[in-house]
């Protein structure tokens, strides 16, 4: 039987772990709330520019981003977190990323430290990276990465850029998603046109500056918005995953403290009983 003192030490250890877990949970919950708010406007902005691009793409494809390629060189943006303690968040993302193809077929553009380490270990080339991502992604850094990705694609160094990330579904729910970033394939160009810019029977849009000059400004902003939205989705998912993981961990710690306290009380009682028996035994012997 372990001594009461050992059990007491163990209880103290678990208690401090529980405190840490609760603190991490609180921090993650605050960040999640902020990330959700940012995600909401980001979705609105990215959705608006997506619509604009779809309507423009129905009229012209005069930009590298809009032209399908025959080549097979692929790059994949993989969004993970910098640190662990967020359940299966990173493992799920990496597992999905591996389905994209082997190290010979795909180069990785890693957002978040975990992705760099995990993919490098498996022999993938890290073509670009954004680390550390941090608890609140820096919009300027994300924008710069988007511009670098755009140049990589326009220069013909890669023929397709996809993104693997965790999309946020509210609460603690999220889901792995895989999207093609470049080339831009407007979902059935024209099908969408009737509800917006191009009323049925109208083919013309006033463009200022005229096409194709306008497209540069549009496509640059489009890619920035897409990437920023993706990173924001993933960031919200990360915080949600951390809240869930830390809730489970602190609940477990609490349960452990309960059973350890029971063990402690038993050990203490056993000690007292033993001492009493000895005293009684001794006094009877001398009587």
């Amino acid at each position, binding site marked *: 039987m372990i001594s009461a003192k050992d059990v007491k030490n163990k209880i103290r250890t678990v208690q401090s772990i529980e405190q840490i877990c609760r603190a991490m949970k609180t921090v993650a919950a605050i960040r999640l709330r902020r990330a959700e708010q940012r995600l909401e406007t980001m979705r*609105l902005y990215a959705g608006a520019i997506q619509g604009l691009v779809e309507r423009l793409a129905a009229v012209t494809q005069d930009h590298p981003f809009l032209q399908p390629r025959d080549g097979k060189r692929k790059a994949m943006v993989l969004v993970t977190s910098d640190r662990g303690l967020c359940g299966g968040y990173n493992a799920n993302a990496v597992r999905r990323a591996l389905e994209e193809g082997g190290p010979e077929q795909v180069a990785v553009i890693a957002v978040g430290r975990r992705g760099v380490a995990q993919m490098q270990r498996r022999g993938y080339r890290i073509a670009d990276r954004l680390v550390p991502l941090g608890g609140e992604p820096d919009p300027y850094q994300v924008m710069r990465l988007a511009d670098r990705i755009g140049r990589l694609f326009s220069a013909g160094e890669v023929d397709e850029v996809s993104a693997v990330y965790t999309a946020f579904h509210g609460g603690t729910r999220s889901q792995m998603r895989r999207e093609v970033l470049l080339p831009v394939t407007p979902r059935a160009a024209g099908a969408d046109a009737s509800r917006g810019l191009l009323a049925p029977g109208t083919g013309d849009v006033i463009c200022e500056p005229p096409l194709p000059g306008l497209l540069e400004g549009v496509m640059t902003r489009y890619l920035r918005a897409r990437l920023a939205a993706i990173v924001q989705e993933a960031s919200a998912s990360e915080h949600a995953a951390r809240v869930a993981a830390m809730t489970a961990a602190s609940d477990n710690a609490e349960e452990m403290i309960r059973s350890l306290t029971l063990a402690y009380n038993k050990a203490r009682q056993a000690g007292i009983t033993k001492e009493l028996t000895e005293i009684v035994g001794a006094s009877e012997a001398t009587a």
Partner: protein
Amino acid sequence: MPPLYDLTIVSADRVVYRGKVESLVAPGAMGSFGVLAHHAPMVAELETGELDVVAEGGGRVSFAVSGGLLEVTWSGVTVLADSAEAAEEIDVDRAAAAEQRAEERLRARPEGVDTARAEAALKRALNRLRVARRKGRGPGASENG
């Protein structure tokens, strides 16, 4: 009363304005242009400048816009701003500090300074200061919705 249309000004981090308006004048990359109701579909690139809106009822609202896109559809106008603030929201001290910082960078030109970036920053700061100074002009200048 002149016909109205729906205007949304949104940047990546917030919805800056949403409401029914009579007209607007935007800082187009090729010069300022105006948009009234029933304007033909259009996509325009904006540069750093002042976006003036005449809201429903004739109230004027000015915004400092730092580049972006403007789309006119049959259902309304959307401004996708790289950043935008209503005149009342502009932090004048911050803009003045940014102006000074950018000017110093351009004057000193030490190794590694991105001149284009500093120039753009200066332009944004000057624009914010100009729009902020002009707030409250015109009849019925109102808060943004």
